[in-house]
Structures are given as structure tokens and as C-alpha cells.
């Protein structure tokens, strides 16, 4: 089977790095030509369906599958009684316990909606019907439905997230102006357009997995470890992904179930999670709460910040949604203290969702800063500028680049902030109150090595080959642009092959780290390939460029020539033909020279080689400032966002069109977070009762106003090889507080618990 057909793009209007090239694979997607994981035409498929627990805690005593097994078309029922013989795979860091069995369908019930059985049948409909015939007997134990449950307790302090300097409590007590507030965010979910699921097929001890993935290599490693087969025996294919937002970075239990069923049956198996199962089979953003106290002088100079936060986690793993992540670095403050706890509850372990940590953290600190501004009677913009952090007070390191000041001032200018009237409830249009608010955001620059292959083909086409993925953020496009620029060719002369664990290793598309990482590798491989070609062109006796006397060559306008036009100019295909070459293939990675094969494997399949934002000389982050206008119908409590201006410092933009699209996407998710999104939990049984798209509301087009985005960044070559900082995560960070602050300005009501639904304002 041809897995990745050659791709061409349409408009080659601006195909160099930094150009506004349209989406490389856009035509394929809008014409239905892009094949997603559940669409691969694999023959002889069987269909698997998961059965989930209906109690929040306890133990599966027995599963009566007799009726299900007798139902038409049923091939297999898997229950906790089946020992699949799997072993626990490595964690994110690449650490793995020795010989620890893994039970993707566990006997122990840890939350309501946990997968505990599976049915495989000849058709999906038959599997669904048979699943309803399964009768499970439980032994139920007491549960903790949420961290607001009185039985939840205070949770445990995450020591690695405790941070402080100066004497925050004392400075706070001495500060003439103090504010204090508790801010909370509910459980939120990814709601990617493409639900989770996979198609899986074994050929002997070789397995092929078609599954949406933010990290083809990392997920392939999990499959190999679960099943005890060599990494090379796993092929995970994921060329197109319908959105991930953090949910598709790790292989999940349902993948193990499908792969096991396929192996046992000797048939390929397709398993698609239902939309409701996408709310319980993996974790969204944890619910958070945080108490923030700020002390300041009467003229608004921060003296101290004291932060105490908590987030929900599951009863079987600690996943902190770090409420103190943005708090220490947004402002200059000499006395600081932050602590974060996790509170175990009977829920699926939470996971990363766009802007993890930074997002709820910014809701806290950016709401608190505006509360302080109003207490001081000061313009919130002025307060932020007045406390501008000249360096990173947490690490003590200088910023690599930090254009947050420009984001604030240029954003304010574009928004028309100077026309604001300070008093809450002072701006009105008919029976609508109008409010303006600011929210700043940040996300760290995370660096990781990657590998890439460049192939120059005899026909003059250039292939970029990488296992990196594109979930809509634009990897195809910017890699094509990078190769096009290096070889001086139009983008439509480039082919890009992505999303396959057999291809060269790449960082995860998460933490906004992929673009900077993979562009570095592709650029390095492409320039090496060009150097190789130059070497051949200047030295090979068959080369028409050999006698030009030049010591290098230029690549421009699709032609290769000596720098001062001495001698002929050739296209890539002409040169390749002259050299008698069918192909030049170059593989490069951005690991230190001499990295062993083992180190390379580790780099692509774990986070072991990932560098945090302050591990070098500098403190490196993306920054943004959002300006939101809301209109509130006070009688009804309804909030409509009528305008947003957001200014970003993400360093150099590799493709402004796609970056702006990603920023807008983040802002739109932020609107949902601010006004609509909330997993509602029935305290009696821990069930999320609105786990579907009719009841868990995300913004519609009608909820999205005009969004103006501005780039104020400058290239940051400390952050990445080509000067960019991350763009994907930061867009959402600070949106919710900007809207909450605007709602306060409009109504005089401070809503400290998201989302801002209408009953909170009437």
C-alpha cells in the first residue's frame, strides 16, 4: 500500500521561510483527499467497542458476557479476566518499571466511565448492540467526585512546583495595598474535531497502527513496550490529524485493547471512541483553584505575591495543572511564594490541554492584577507596564527576548485603549454594558532535538522526510518553505512526507516545541544536501559548472549558477542529470555530534533530551497581551465578545498566515473557556453528565468576533535555529482573564470562577 501519496500545494505565492504560503495540504483536506486514521481501507476489519464503568470507584467482581458472545457477529469479548500479557510502557521521561504488568481493562474501577470491557464484532453496529448485553457486577466503594467534595481533603503539595524568593508573607503584611482572591477553572476538554480511535493490523510480529498522533515515535515506543516487540516492528502512521490540543501525544488504553484484539483474532481491528467516550477515556484539563494575594505600594509597585493553588488529579496518577506557572514570571516582584497541590479524585487522570499550567495560572494572576488596578484606581495597562519584569525574577536569568512591553503598548494602540473610561459600568450601548479588559499570557520555549531527511531526486524535486506530524498547525507548509528556500525552488517542487514512525525521528508536537525543533533539523539536512550538491557540481568531471572556477554556487529562481554568472545555469533536474545521479539523500539531526544510536532512539521516543526554558543562559518564553471587548446584556447576564486585539511576541514567524490562524484558534478556545466550557459532574456518582457536543459547549462561529492579531516579535536565535519561539500554546493563555476583566469593567461584577455563564451575572 502506498501510505503517503505525493502532495502538491496550490498557491506558491510566497514559499520562503517567513512567507505567507497557503496551507500545503489544504486542497487535500477540503476536497476529502486526506486520509485520516479511521478511514484507511484495510480489508477484513473487525470492529471493537469499549464498555465503560457506570460506578465511580470499586472493583469488577464479574462480567457476564454470555449473551453478548451469543449475539450476531460477535467475535470476542475482553474483560478484566483476560490477561493480555502486556507490560507497562515508559513514562514521558522514558523511565519504565521492570516487568510490571499492564491492564488496559483493569479490575479496579477508579472513575465513572473507565473502560473495563471491550466487544469485537463483524460490524460496529453488532459490537455496539452486544456491548449493551454485557452485565457487570461491581463491588462499589466510596468515591470522591471532585476536589470540592468534602472528602477530597487538601491534597498533596507538589514539591517540585514550590517556588519562592524574598519574604513574601512579611512583605505582603507590610504592603499598604493588598488584594486577595480565589480563582477557579472547571474541568475542560479538548473536543478535537477528529475523535480518538485507531485501525490496527498485525503481520506476524510486525504491527501497523493508523492512529492520530502528536508524536508518532513516542507512541510507537509504547506499543512496542506493551507487546514486548522490537521498536522497529511497530509502524505508527498519522499523516493527518483532526486536531489534538494535547490529547494525542500518548498511546492510550484503547490502543492497547485494539492491538491485543487484533493479534488474538488474527484480523485487523478498528476501534473508534464515541464522542462521549472522548470525555472519559482520557483526561482533559484538570479543574483548578488558586488563592492569590498581592501586596503593592499606593502607587502600584508590587511588593509581594503569595500564591496557593490546587488541581484535581486521579486516584492512580499525579498530573499537576500548575496554577503557579505564569505567576512568577509575568511581573517584577521581589518577594514571591507559590505552592501547588494535587487533589486525587475519582476521575480519569487529567492531561495536557492547550497552554497547560500557564492557562489557568494566567487566569489567576491576570484577574488579580486587574483587581489590584481597580483597588488602586489605576489603569490596568499602566499597572502592568509599571511592574514590567526586566529579567526573570524566578530563575534570575535575563530574558532571551521579551517584547511583552511592545505587545501591551502596540496592542493597546490598535485596540484604542486610550479611549477607555475607567469606571466599571461607565460604557454602554442601549441596554448593553460594554467592558474592556486585558490579559497577558506566556508560554515557555521548550527545545528538543529532531532528525530529518532531504532527498534531491533526479527529476529535480526535493523531498522532506520526517516522522514529525501536522495536526493542522502547518508542519507540511513550513517544511516545504524551508526546503524551497534552501534550494531556491518554488514550493510546488517540494514534497513533504510526515507522520510515520518509520521516518526520521522528531520531537512531539506539544509544548509548542515542534516547529523550532524540526525546522532546525530540516534546515540542517537541506543545507547539507545543498553543500553536497555544490561539491559534486564543482568537482565532478561531468558537471557543466566545474569549469566556472567558482568556489560556491547560488540557488535562486529554480536555477543553480556560479555567483557572478560565470558559466551556465542549470535547474536541479538538469544538474542531477549531468551528474548522472538519481538521488542525493542526506540525513541530519540536531543532537550533539557523536550521539549514539541509543541516545538517538531515546531522543525521539522520550522527553529525556528536552530542554526547559531556563536550562541555558537565558530565560526564554513567548509572550502575548490580549485586549477584549465584551457586551453584556445585564438583564439576561449574557456576555458576547465583540472584539479582540491580541499582540504576540513569538519571535520570528515562519509563516505568518498559519501563525495568525493558530493564534486565532487559541483565542477562540479561550472564548469558550471564558464563557462556555465546563465539565459538569454529578457528585452522587462522579459521572460527567454533559460529555457530548450538545451539552458541552464550545464556541460557534456566531460567538467569534473580529480578532485582530499583531506580531511584535523579533527573531530569537537563542530559542531556535531559525529564530522562532512557540506559537501554538500561547494563543489561549490570557484570553479568559481578558474577558473576565472586561466583564468586570462592563458590569462591576468580578467573576472568579469560570466559565462566566449568565446566572453568574443576573
Amino acid at each position, binding site marked *: 500500500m502506498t501510505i503517503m501519496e505525493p502532495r502538491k500545494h496550490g498557491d506558491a505565492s510566497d514559499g520562503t521561510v517567513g512567507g505567507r504560503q497557503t496551507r500545503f495540504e489544504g486542497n487535500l483536506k477540503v476536497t476529502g483527499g486526506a486520509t485520516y486514521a479511521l478511514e484507511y481501507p484495510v480489508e477484513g476489519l473487525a470492529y471493537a467497542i469499549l464498555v465503560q464503568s457506570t460506578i465511580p470507584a470499586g472493583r469488577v467482581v464479574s462480567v457476564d458476557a454470555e449473551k453478548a458472545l451469543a449475539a450476531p457477529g460477535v467475535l470476542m469479548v475482553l474483560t478484566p479476566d483476560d490477561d493480555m500479557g502486556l507490560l507497562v510502557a515508559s513514562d514521558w521521561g522514558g523511565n519504565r518499571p521492570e516487568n510490571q504488568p499492564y491492564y488496559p481493562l483493569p479490575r479496579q474501577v477508579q472513575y465513572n466511565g473507565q473502560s473495563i470491557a471491550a466487544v469485537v464484532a463483524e460490524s460496529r453496529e453488532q459490537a455496539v448492540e452486544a456491548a449493551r448485553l454485557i452485565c457487570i457486577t461491581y463491588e462499589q466503594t466510596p468515591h470522591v467526585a471532585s476536589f470540592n467534595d468534602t472528602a477530597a481533603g487538601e491534597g498533596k503539595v507538589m514539591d517540585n512546583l514550590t517556588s519562592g524568593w524574598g519574604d513574601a508573607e512579611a512583605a505582603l503584611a507590610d504592603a499598604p495595598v493588598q488584594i486577595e482572591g480565589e480563582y477557579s477553572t472547571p474541568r475542560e476538554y479538548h473536543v478535537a474535531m477528529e475523535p480518538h480511535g485507531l485501525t490496527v493490523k498485525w503481520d506476524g510480529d510486525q504491527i501497523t497502527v493508523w492512529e492520530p498522533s502528536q508524536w508518532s515515535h513516542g507512541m510507537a515506543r509504547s506499543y512496542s513496550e506493551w507487546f514486548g516487540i522490537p521498536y522497529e516492528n511497530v509502524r505508527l502512521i498519522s499523516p493527518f490529524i483532526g486536531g489534538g490540543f494535547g490529547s494525542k501525544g500518548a498511546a492510550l488504553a484503547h490502543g492497547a485493547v485494539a492491538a491485543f484484539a487484533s493479534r488474538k483474532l488474527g484480523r485487523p481491528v478498528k476501534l473508534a471512541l464515541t464522542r462521549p467516550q472522548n470525555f472519559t477515556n482520557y483526561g482533559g484539563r484538570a479543574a483548578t483553584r488558586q488563592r492569590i494575594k498581592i501586596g503593592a505600594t499606593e502607587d502600584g509597585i508590587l511588593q509581594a505575591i503569595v500564591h496557593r493553588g490546587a488541581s484535581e488529579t486521579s486516584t492512580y496518577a499525579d498530573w499537576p495543572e500548575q496554577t503557579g506557572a505564569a505567576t512568577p514570571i509575568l511581573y517584577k516582584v521581589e518577594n514571591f511564594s507559590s505552592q501547588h497541590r494535587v487533589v486525587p479524585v475519582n476521575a480519569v487522570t487529567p492531561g495536557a490541554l492547550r497552554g497547560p499550567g500557564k492557562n489557568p495560572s494566567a487566569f489567576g494572576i491576570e484577574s488579580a492584577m486587574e483587581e489590584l488596578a481597580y483597588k488602586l484606581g489605576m489603569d490596568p495597562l499602566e499597572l502592568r507596564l509599571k511592574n514590567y519584569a526586566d529579567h526573570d525574577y524566578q530563575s534570575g536569568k535575563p530574558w532571551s527576548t521579551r517584547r511583552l512591553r511592545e505587545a501591551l503598548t502596540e496592542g493597546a494602540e490598535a485596540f484604542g485603549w486610550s479611549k477607555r473610561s475607567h469606571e466599571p459600568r461607565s460604557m454602554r450601548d442601549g441596554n448593553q454594558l460594554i467592558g474592556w479588559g486585558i490579559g497577558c499570557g506566556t508560554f515557555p520555549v521548550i527545545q528538543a532535538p529532531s532528525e530529518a531527511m532531504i532527498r534531491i531526486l533526479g527529476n529535480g524535486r526535493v523531498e522532506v522526510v520526517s516522522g514529525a506530524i501536522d495536526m493542522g498547525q502547518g508542519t507540511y507548509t513550513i517544511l516545504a518553505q524551508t526546503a524551497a528556500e534552501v534550494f531556491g525552488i518554488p514550493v510546488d517542487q517540494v514534497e513533504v512526507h510526515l507522520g510515520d514512525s518509520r521516518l526520521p525521528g522528531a520531537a512531539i508536537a506539544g509544548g509548542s516545541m515542534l516547529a523550532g525543533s524540526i525546522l532546525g533539523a530540516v534546515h540542517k539536512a537541506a543545507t547539507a544536501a545543498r553543500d553536497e550538491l555544490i561539491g559534486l557540481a564543482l568537482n565532478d568531471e561531468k558537471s557543466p559548472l566545474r569549469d566556472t572556477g567558482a568556489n560556491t554556487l547560488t540557488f535562486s529562481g529554480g536555477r543553480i549558477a556560479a555567483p557572478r554568472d560565470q558559466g551556465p545555469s542549470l535547474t536541479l533536474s538538469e544538474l542531477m542529470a549531468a551528474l548522472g545521479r538519481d538521488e542525493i539523500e542526506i540525513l541530519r539531526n540536531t543532537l550533539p555530534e557523536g550521539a549514539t544510536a541509543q541516545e538517538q532512539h531515546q531522543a525521539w521516543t522520550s522527553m529525556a533530551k528536552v530542554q526547559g526554558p531556563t536550562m541555558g543562559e537565558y530565560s526564554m518564553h513567548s509572550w502575548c497581551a490580549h485586549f477584549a471587548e465584551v457586551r453584556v446584556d445585564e438583564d439576561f447576564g449574557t456576555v458576547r465578545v465583540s472584539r479582540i486585539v491580541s499582540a504576540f511576541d513569538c519571535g520570528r514567524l515562519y509563516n505568518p498566515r498559519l501563525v495568525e490562524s493558530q493564534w486565532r484558534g487559541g483565542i477562540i478556545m479561550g472564548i469558550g473557556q471564558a464563557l462556555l466550557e465546563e465539565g459538569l459532574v454529578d457528585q452522587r456518582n462522579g459521572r460527567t*453528565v454533559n460529555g457530548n457536543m450538545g451539552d458541552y459547549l464550545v464556541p460557534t462561529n456566531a460567538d467569534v468576533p473580529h480578532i485582530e492579531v499583531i506580531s511584535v516579535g523579533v527573531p530569537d536565535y537563542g530559542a531556535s535555529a531559525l529564530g522562532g519561539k512557540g506559537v501554538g500554546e500561547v494563543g489561549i493563555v490570557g484570553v479568559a482573564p481578558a474577558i473576565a476583566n472586561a466583564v468586570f469593567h462592563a458590569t462591576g461584577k468580578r467573576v472568579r470562577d469560570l466559565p462566566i455563564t449568565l446566572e453568574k451575572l443576573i
Partner: protein
Amino acid sequence: MRDFSYYRASSADEARHAALQSGAMLLAGGTTLLDLAKCGVMEPETVVDITHLPGLGRITVDAGGATIGALAKMGEVADHAGIRAAFPAVSESLSLAASAQLRNMATIGGNLLQRTRCSYFREPDVFPACHKRNPGSGCSALGGVTRNHAVLGTSDTCIASYPGDLAVALVAFDAVVELGGRTISVDDFFLTPGNTPERETVLERGEMITAITVPASAAAKNSTYLKVRDRQSYEFAAASAAVGLEFEADGRTVRDIRVALGGVATKPWRARNVEQALTGKVLSPETVEVASRLAMEGAVSHGANHYKIELAPRVVARAILKVGGLV
């Protein structure tokens, strides 16, 4: 999904006859049936497809009123020029409902019969107790997450709200459901749960809605449907109001007023007490505000839905002021 047999009816009589079988359900646009079959709530043994019945999709509007065939699509009715002119509230209630895709599929008859969005009704595996689904089994919503549940017309057995919009406008303007052999007002067509929440309408097995008629009136011509919700589009009402108003010749005194509420009650809720309080009165913001509060007479909250009791009268008041030309 359970296997079912499919039967395409070629006449209304044939459809009625087929629907008499136990386990038979009519299929029109399918937007409710398919959804609830996937949830395991509806388990038809036979699906009787009525979408090919001739003549049931017609929309006619004349001086006496409108007749809307049961198979007319929501979108067609919403966009019908005659409906828009004579019954703006009806048109608006439809265009503010669902999404464009659903409005293109869903029929008017099916729209009236849409089922509640009560989360507990929709998840039988996790919440077996539901009197509506399984009489005598209990009510899981009581004591649960009740933000979207009804505050009017509830009983000890059921607090599920009627989710639709169109029926609210129809109730306001004395629309009538035609069931082939008999006719009944939309108001009487729907039932409050009482002790039989499984019975939501007076529709008998083997009966089928064939058309809806709406009498023309000056109040219907000067009407609006106001729908309030957190999301701008594609969400059920937190509270809604269909209001129509006719003034006396002085242009200030109320001759005829119609008020119905959605999103707050177990059925489309005609607020006759509000109408009575304003009929014959000079319309002013003050009289409207006081009268609108009457809409919540008898309202009972169940925790999180308490806000509806505060919100609904405001929605009613705004809608009245709007058709009265006061906002």
C-alpha cells in the same frame, strides 16, 4: 444500535396502520430518532418512514392563517415569506433553533415531538432511574445536575424541560395540531408530567401529526421570539419567550397579548396570567415588569436551575417591550 426493520409508507393510512404495531416508530427527519437510538433511549423494532408521503410538506398562508404540513422542513418554514410576514415569532423560533444542517433535515411534526435534553434521560446505562423512560424507576435528575431543568409544570416524578422553540410560538398563537382524524390545540397536545411523565403528548399509538394550523391574528403579525442562552447559536434556551401584541386604536392600550415561555417548563408554557394582567392596560415598562413576574407563578427550583426563575420574567418583559415598541 439494535437491528430494526424498515418500512416505507406510501400513504398516511398505511403509515398509521404500520405505526400501530408494537415497537413501531415513525421516521421523518430522523434528528431525534437517530440521536436517541444511538443513546439507547429509543429502540424501534420497526421504523416507518413517512418522508415519502405526498402532500405533507406543503405550507400555505392566507388571510385566515397558515397551514404547515407535518413534513415541511424547519428551514423551509423559517424562510417562508408568508410565515415571516404573518407570524414573525414562528419564523424566528425556528431560525433560532438547532443548526442550519438540522433545520434542513428536521420536520415540523418531528420538531414538536422532540424529546427532552435531560442528561439523565439520555444515558440509560449510567442512570437507570428515569420515570419518563421507564415508569416507576425513579428520577435521577432530582438531586443531580439541574441547570437546564424545568421550574414550571414539574412533578415529583419528572423535572425534564421541553426543549423546543417552535411549539412555544405555536402555543402563544392558539395553533392547532391536525392528527388526521381529530384536531387539538398545541397547548392541549402537550401534557405536563404529573404521575405519567412517559406520556408527553396526547398522541395515541397509530396517530400521526399531519399538519399544524395557526390562525392569523393582529398579535401574531406583531410578534417576536426572544431566546436567551449562553452560546450565541445552536443551544437550547436558558429561557425564551414568544410574544405577540395588538394595541387598541390609541396605540398604547393592550387589546390582545400572547405570551408563552420556553426553556423553563415541562411543556411549551402559555403564560395566560401575564396576558390577563396586561389586557386592557396601557403598556409601560413598569406594568410590563410587574406583569411579567406572574409568569413564574408556581415555579419551583431544584438547585442549579434557580436562575431561570429570575431570568424568565426578564425575557418575557423584554419581548413584550420590543413588540410594544418600547425598546
